[in-house]
Every structure is written in structure tokens, then in C-alpha cells.
């Protein structure tokens, strides 16, 4: 269970990492639905998330320059923890329907529909087919 301060910190980090974009028509990672998903998706990265939140007490009340400085410091001192937290945010962001659609993907799991992959140009193999065998025979 996160404290109010930890929640606000996490939301600020999510927004700093992935802001909304009107150009691409996508929300920020601090969007309500995505943030709710983040809160229940720490998984095996929970210790990392908690390390970051512990280190960044009072973060949400800093001005933008102060926040940038604290994140830079965290990158130096707790890079593994920051990687874990970033991974959680990215996992939730890049499975959001709106984000997947903006990438030209259908918002669905891969199974059972699957995907199409073109065969590709097999004539590219012609020069290799002409090559004599080159493995070594063993005594």
C-alpha cells in the first residue's frame, strides 16, 4: 500500500517519463487508466519500485529542475531500481488500447488470432545454393 506522497511521486515520474502527445494522439503514462494499471503491476519489481519511492520522498513538490536533478542522481546511485520501475511503467503504457492503436496494432493479445508474416524473397538464397559444401569431414 503506497502513501499519498509515494503515489504522487510515482505519478510524477510516469508523467516525466512519458508525457501525453497530441501529435501522436496518446495519453501520458500518468493517465488514470494507465496509472491504475501501474499500481497493481509491480510484480517482481516491487522491491525496485519501493527503493525508488523511498529515495524520492517529497519529489512531487519539487520544481521541474529539482525533479530532473533528483532523477539524474537516482540514475547514478540506484540504476537497477530505476530500471525496474521504468520497466513497470513501460509494461503498462505499451499495452494500453489507445497506445497500441496509435502504433497501428490491434489492442488484443497475440493468441489466438496470430499475425501474418510474408514469405519474403526466397530467390535471395540462389547464390548460397551454388556454394559447395564447406563443413569439415572428421576422421
Amino acid at each position, binding site marked *: 500500500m503506497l502513501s499519498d506522497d509515494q503515489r504522487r511521486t510515482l505519478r510524477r515520474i510516469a508523467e516525466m517519463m512519458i508525457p501525453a502527445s497530441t501529435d501522436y494522439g496518446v495519453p501520458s503514462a500518468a493517465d488514470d487508466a494507465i496509472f491504475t494499471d501501474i499500481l497493481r503491476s509491480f510484480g517482481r519489481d516491487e522491491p525496485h519500485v519501493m527503493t525508488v519511492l523511498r529515495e524520492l520522498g517529497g519529489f512531487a513538490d519539487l520544481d521541474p529542475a529539482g525533479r530532473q536533478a533528483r532523477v539524474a542522481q537516482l540514475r547514478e546511485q540506484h540504476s537497477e531500481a530505476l530500471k525496474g520501475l521504468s520497466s513497470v511503467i513501460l509494461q503498462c503504457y505499451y499495452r494500453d488500447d489507445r497506445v497500441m492503436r496509435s502504433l497501428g496494432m490491434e489492442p488484443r493479445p497475440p493468441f489466438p488470432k496470430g499475425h501474418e508474416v510474408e514469405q519474403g524473397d526466397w530467390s*535471395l538464397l540462389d547464390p548460397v545454393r551454388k556454394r559447395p559444401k564447406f563443413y569439415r569431414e572428421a576422421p
Partner: protein
Amino acid sequence: MPTQPVDVLIIGAGASGAAIAWSLAETKMHILCLEQGDWMRPSEYPSSGRDWEARQLNDFHYSPNRRARDTDYPINDANSPIKIANFNGVGGGTVLYAGHFPRFHPSDFRVHTMDGVADDWPIDYATLAPYYDENDRMMGVSGLSGDPAYPPHEPMMAPLPLGKSGATLARGLNKLGWHWWPSDSAIASEDYEGRARCINLAHCTSGCAQGAKASTDVTYWPAAIRAGVELRTRCRVREITRHDDGMASGVIYYDADGKEQFQPAHVVILACNAIGTARILLNSNGLANSSGLVGKNLMFHPYARIAGWFDEELDGYRGPGNCIWSQEFYETDASRGFVRGYTFEFSRGQNPVMAAVHSMQIGRLPWGEDHHRAYRRLFCHRTGMVAICEDLPEEHNRVTLDPQLKDCHGIPAPKIDYTLSENSRRMLDHAVARASEILRAAGAHDVWYEAPLTDGGWHLMGTARMGIDPQRSVVNEWGRSHDVKNLFIVDGSIFVTSAGVNPTRTIQALALYVADNIKSRLATLFD
């Protein structure tokens, strides 16, 4: 009432345990397999849910230490630059494997004679060839005959599609005049023996929900069970016990309720992979270890991963990772500055989360305003390859029992000590340089690599090597312990050298070969 002895007790239901169970079933002996993990339910694999990539980073992660299911055991790999990857359940590592399915080459069995390093195997390519064929039929192999890097063999299904990524890379390879060929894959490109064809989910390494990938829970096991083999899951073996005459008497294991049990057996077969098998032997009072080599000579394949980004859109999140391979640098060439060689296996792209997570970790994807633009230049624009380098056996690379770390049953965990050799370092450098040339020739505008790949300890070999000399090997030339005549080993531990290709097709061919030796020697098996 005491438990009745079984004729054959197999420990481990992975790649090799499944193969030998199926092959021995025709003897109608009472065969029991004890497996510490569960049966998998393919319909619940990650690719059937919206959190498919998150689960790959959690309960389907390939590191047992991160996955940490109650069916896993911890592994102390802190003293190794390459970390262990595996899966514990029916199917073993094949549940998560990519299904790259190369054979060894004739020269791989003769490295001492031909290149003056390590030891020759006590068997050769010709001995294994019929077992490769038999295993291919059971697993189902897609590919194309005629590869000039290999002795002739006939994959039974058409190759997996080249796609945009394969075609792009093939163009680069052709410009350089270097070998490439569609990879042999244990993935059904057509419906095969009751299994549906691949539908390009691009999620092979967290279990194939379609059943197209040949993991042994969907290939060998159903056939073995129909033929009468008994498979008990959630049974973790602690040690192998002995009679006074030194023969194995059975095993002590913990059942699904955590209760200690004793199962007597006339023959015990270890199939727990090169770490799990060494662990059980070391925990069995020095069993089968008069050579002192149990746990030693651990080999991985040091991997390099090299990727490039292209202007044009490639396959991205579509299609199995398997595509084409190159063995241009496979056979020894002294002018390269190292002995032996490596295979390039070319992959496709990445799913959306992995593309983001990895790109951010390697400094290609920024935080803030530029995030979206940068992501769209990366996602579906990346392809690349891995180089699989032959690792040579060195006794100081080893598995021992950790003095502190234990699993949930109190069994000591394995500890890994491994250092990368100078030969491997040079081979990795060579591979990275050649791979970069391929990617540039194919049109990449940016190239990245990691070598050795830290997470790449998925090929586990050598810790109970086979050989004719009992002082220099743990099992004989047909897999029987030199010391304990009713104890056999069939997993990757018995490899003498590692070759520069993925090992599973050879592990399984060896298991079938050992099975045939057992069947043909039943009357004199313990002589």
C-alpha cells in the same frame, strides 16, 4: 507397506527425460519419472492475455531466481558473468526455448584430433545420425535440405518464413558473400502430428499457446504416457541412495505435499540438465564421482547479441524469433585468432513493451518530450542476430553446492563459478565485428551489441562428461556411470565439448542413443 521398486526411475521430465522415457516404454518395464515442476496449461500461456509481455518478465521469466515459482530452485550465479536460464516443469527448458534446432557437425565430435583442443567424444556424427532422424520425427522440424554447412539431412516441413527481417539480413549477407540458410526449427510450419502450425505469435520463449513449438510436454510425453510411462509431478529428488554393493537403490524425494518419500528402483536415469544433475550427484555423498569431475567443465555458449535499426519497417512483433542462420565462421580458421567457431542466428524484432524496455536500458529511448518520436523510429525498425560461440571445457568452470543457499525443501542450491576464457573473448569480439558488417551491409543506420550476453546461460553442458577413461569422465560411451552400473545420465551434462550451436537436438539424440544401448544390452546391463 513399503513402496514397490520400479524397473526404471527417470529424474527430470525435460528434453532428455521425455525422449528416453518414450524410447524405453516399448520394453514394457515399469518406468516412473519424477519431476519437480507442474504440467503446463498452454491455454494459459502469456500470449493469450493482454499482459503477455509483463508475464514474460515475471512468472515466465527464464531466470529461475527472478521467476521464483515454488517449483523452482534458487541458483547462486553471482560468480559468473553469464546467468542461468532454465524452466522447471514437464517439458523442462523446452517450455521456454526458442526452438532453434541445429545438429552438431562431424568436426564437433573430434575437436582434439582436428584442432588440438579439449577432448574428442567417444562417439561420432555417424553414430548419432539415426537418432537425430528419430528425434526429428518426434519433435517435427521445419527447414530446408541442401545447407552446404551440413551433412545432408531432410527437415520434414517447409522453412519458417523469411519475412521482411530475414530478407533484409539475407541481402546484407549476400553483399558480403557469406553463408546463410533457413534455420532448422522445432516449430511446425505446417500442421504436424496433431499439432497446429505456427501462427506467428512471436512469443515462443514464454511458451507456445498454439502448440506449434515442439516442447516435450506436447511431443514425447503424450506418446510416452500412452505407452505406459508414469509421470509424477511436484516430486523433487534430494539424493540417490545406494545398496551396500555400491549400486543405486533408489531416490529420496519430497512429494507434492512436501513429505519425504523413498522410491526404490533397479535403474536410475538422471535427466535434470547440467546443473540439476550435478547438484543431485554432489548431494548424494560423492556418488559416481571417483573421477572428481562431477560438476566440473561446465560449459555455456557465450552469446553476443547484435541489433541494428533500419529506416524501413521490418517484422517487429510478428513471427517466431527463428528465421535464418549463418555458419560462415563455424569451422576453425587459425587466422582469426581463436580456435573453433560460432553460429549466427538471426532473429526478427521485438514486441512493443520489450522494444521500449530494452531501448530505454541501452540509452536509445529518452524520457520526456522526445519519447514518442524516438519510439516510433525504433519499434518495428529493429532486427539482428545472436552469435553462439563454442565454449571449451575448463575444470575451474563448475557447479558446487552452496554452503548457505537452499531451496524450499532445504536441499542445498547449486553455486556456479565461471570465467570467460580468452578464446571465447576473442571469438565474441570477432562475432560482434562481423555482425556489425552484416547489419551495415543490410542498411542499418545504428548498431548496438552486448557481449557476452549476461542473461544467456540457457545452454548447460559438460558437468558429467562421457568418455572411455573412468579417470577422465563420469559416464561411459553409452551414458552409464563408470562407478555405479545401474546409474545413467542423459542430459547435457554428458557433453564432452559444446560445439557452436544450440544443444537440444543433440541432447535428445543422445538420450535416444543411450536408450537403444540399454534396450540392446538388457541381459548384461550391469556387467
